[in-house]
């Protein structure tokens, strides 16, 4: 009997492509965020509000990931920014290869901020590096304040938490303080924003922070 000791990462192929994506984005000075959440937390609404706020001042590019349909890409059409839709046909997460292929269809556009909206899922997307600079996890107040404890890895692996649908706080049993406490117990370095895409509360604060990150990215290299 012979034994081959290989010590290879199972996702090595994905990680290699992700590293290439990141090098490419750094070279082009494109700041890339990967937005993750469960279905219906408001990822697309958040992108819409960010486009409404900065669409004319920041050169956006959007990659939309969904299991089926191009409904999200259609929603963003009105903003006249480069949008490409990935339909995963059942796959529960985006991978680095899908992102590379999707980006190639908008690579001729001038882009400063690339937003990747991952498939709505709080589990699998957390494990796949796409070549982004930061992961942003969105959770809505209607999902309950215990989500960080139930799905810790996505909260641990993200740099930013956006608590969305704060306009619904008076109508639900979730506690904003408890949600923040739970999230920070998983990841004390999380930067937290509270937003409502209906009233626009908190959107300005999030957008200003986003702009600061882009400016930082233009003057230096992130990784």
């Amino acid at each position, binding site marked *: *009997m012979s034994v*081959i000791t290989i010590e290879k990462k*199972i996702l090595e192929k994905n990680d290699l492509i992700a590293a290439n994506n990141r090098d490419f984005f750094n070279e082009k000075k494109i700041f890339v965020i990967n937005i993750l959440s469960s279905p219906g937390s408001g990822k697309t609404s958040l992108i819409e509000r960010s486009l409404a706020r900065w669409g004319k001042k920041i050169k956006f590019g959007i990659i939309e990931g969904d299991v089926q349909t191009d409904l999200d890409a259609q929603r963003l059409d009105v903003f006249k920014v480069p949008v490409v839709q990935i339909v995963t046909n059942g796959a529960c997460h985006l991978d680095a290869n899908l992102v590379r292929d999707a980006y190639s269809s908008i690579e001729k556009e001038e882009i400063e901020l690339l937003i990747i909206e991952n498939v709505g899922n709080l*589990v699998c997307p957390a494990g796949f590096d796409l070549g982004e600079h930061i992961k942003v996890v969105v959770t809505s107040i209607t999902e309950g304040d215990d989500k960080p404890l139930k799905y*810790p*890895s996505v909260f641990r692996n993200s740099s930013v938490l956006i608590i969305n649908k704060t306009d619904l706080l008076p109508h639900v049993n979730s506690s904003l303080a408890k949600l923040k406490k739970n999230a920070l*117990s998983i990841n004390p370095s999380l930067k937290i924003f509270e937003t409502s895409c209906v009233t626009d509360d908190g959107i300005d604060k999030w957008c200003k922070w986003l702009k600061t990150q882009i400016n930082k990215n233009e003057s230096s290299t992130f990784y």
Partner: protein
Amino acid sequence: MHELSIAQEIINILETNVPTESYRQVSKVKVKIGKFSNILSDSLQFCFEVVINNSKFSNTKLEIETVPLIIECSDCRSKIEIEPPVFICSNCGSSNINLITGNEMSIDLIEIND
């Protein structure tokens, strides 16, 4: 779904690391799966059996070693195992911790019956 794509990736790695003439002689592939990697061992074992039967490695068994979630505390320097979702040092209570192990998803070795 996730475990299925991981099982398929294990087979892809077997294909690139084993000479074609030895495919049928591969008796075991051993993987290390971290407790914080979002992979359920039973589900990975089940998915592996599904995909292996449709591959050229029909005699290959999957052995899974579960790697505990171990942290190092930046304050008291303890290296201890923790149970998610509690991300604090159980020695001094600090949340200033780094994950040492627990995120693994790797192939350790491949056994071939020559």
